[in-house]
């Protein structure tokens, strides 16, 4: 048995679930992504860290098929999908997002309809995927909200009346309602106070352990990444400067920028 198997047996996979290769994207004169490649294996949590403007959110938007790169390919190891997901048209992307990719945004306004009910926000995802039975919509929305530890008596309250932590739980419930193949988390705890952050992270960890959901977590908070991630990718100026097991990267950072980040945190 290899050392890797001893340290983290769940990371040993032969086939990545998600594979992005050679992604580049330029906005005007700004090179947002420069030949970025990433692999995410089933059941693991990939943490992406970097300062503002490093390209991590652009990369996440591409993983969510909200944006296409200038060059590069994207493959999800799921049946009936093309070798490069960037070849899908807008309609196909929307259906794939609805059924197989969940996302939680830093800003709940991006992910939620603030004046609709919380259960309705979850149900919307099911509706887009084609569910047309009202009773099933209610039931599935309730199950997803329960899983994200949202108080069920408030399931029909609109997110605008909820706290930031509760809004994130609604986003999370919406994201997991259809048991996605991969869950994308874009700074899910930024802006929350520390105790609420801890609760949201606990929920995420529990979901990850119970359901083995594959997650990609973007954050500039190294504490969050350290708590959640199995592997870490460090980005700067649109490039991946370091990648490795979380413990490895945090305990023995190789790149000067990673060292600076880790020491800044410490």
């Amino acid at each position, binding site marked *: 048995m290899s050392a890797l198997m001893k340290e983290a047996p769940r990371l040993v996979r032969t086939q990545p679930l998600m594979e992005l290769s050679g992604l580049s994207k330029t906005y005007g004169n700004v090179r947002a992504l420069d030949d970025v490649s990433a692999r995410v294996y089933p059941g693991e949590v990939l943490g992406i860290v970097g300062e503002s403007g490093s390209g991590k959110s652009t990369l996440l938007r591409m993983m969510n098929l909200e944006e296409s790169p200038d060059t590069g390919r994207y493959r999800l190891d799921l049946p009936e999908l093309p070798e490069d997901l960037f070849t899908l048209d*807008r*309609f196909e992307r*929307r259906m794939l997002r609805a059924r197989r990719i969940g996302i939680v945004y830093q800003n709940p306004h991006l992910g939620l*309809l603030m004046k*609709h*009910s919380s*259960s*309705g926000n979850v*149900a*919307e995802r099911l*509706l*887009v995927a084609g569910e*047309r*039975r*009202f*009773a*099933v*919509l209610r039931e599935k929305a309730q199950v997803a909200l329960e899983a994200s530890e949202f108080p069920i008596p408030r399931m*029909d309250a609109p997110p605008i009346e909820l706290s930031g932590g509760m809004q994130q739980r609604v986003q999370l419930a919406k994201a997991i309602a259809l048991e996605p193949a991969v869950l994308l988390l874009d700074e899910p705890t930024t802006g929350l106070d520390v105790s609420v952050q801890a609760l949201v992270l606990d929920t995420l960890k529990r979901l990850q352990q119970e359901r083995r959901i594959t997650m990609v977590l973007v954050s500039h908070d190294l504490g969050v990444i350290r708590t959640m991630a199995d592997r870490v990718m460090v980005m700067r100026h649109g490039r991946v400067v370091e990648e490795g097991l979380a413990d490895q990267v945090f305990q023995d950072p190789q790149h000067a920028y990673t060292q600076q980040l880790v020491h800044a945190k410490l």
Partner: protein
Amino acid sequence: MSLSDLTGRWKAFSYGFLDASAKRELRRKMIKAVAVPGCQMPYASREVPIARGWGTGGLQVTLTLVKPSSTVKVIDQGADDSVNAASIRRFLSRVSGAAETWDTLDATLIQSRHRIPEEKLTRDQILILQVPNPEPLRGVEPNMSTARQMHADADYGRMWLQLYEQMVRSGRVMLGASYPAMVNGRHVMTPSPIPRWDVKKLHMAEHLTILSAGREKRIFAVPPYTRVEPLVFDDVPYKVEDHAHLTCARSGVTGYFMNEIPQEDGSAGYEVSDSHFGIKAIDARDGGTPTVGQTWYRNGELA
């Protein structure tokens, strides 16, 4: 030099009020609308001698389709004798030589505001519905460019969500008129502000329906034998207005869509909404033998 010297003698330059290029524009857009059922086609809406919002869209379509051999019927919320309906009908007749009628069975062109007649329309008839707001997504997406993109993507999740929210808040779908319907399994359209009672009359109908909004400059159509399915959850049946048991105080007919007439004592009386259908019923009750066509509803149930 006077103005008349410059302009020359007046002479009729077109038939049916609209000039040839306006008619060509409308014909092209009607053909497109028929080709893609339920899809809104933009068109160059012209000025006609009634105010925007009073049926200019419907009038332009009728003026394009009308010919001397046509027989036109115009109804306003079911009534043939309202000022608006009578004015439009007379205008149509005057500019085209077409015959006027109140009888649904005699009409070849039926321009209507907010109702579909109770007697079934046939393949030789065209129904033209006046539409104030052609965009069914307006309530869920205020940006019209985004709404058009949503139609292109068949992205109707928000429409369904609207129904879900109403079910959660009120226990039932609260939409009355303009109930959104999926046409041919592809485009969601507003059937114009017809009551829910009438929406199902469009489903697999023999006649062609053209819906036109003059102010908003949009035409869409339901060709004959096309599926028109109101958006409804699989486990929450579509309900029409509860008029099946109501009886018309004037004609005595039961089981048709009624107008509510407030009474002085605070109660409500009812009168069949399709005015000429009511006239036929009164004639029959009084011993006459009017020709009454087959109706969409029988005993308050869709036949």
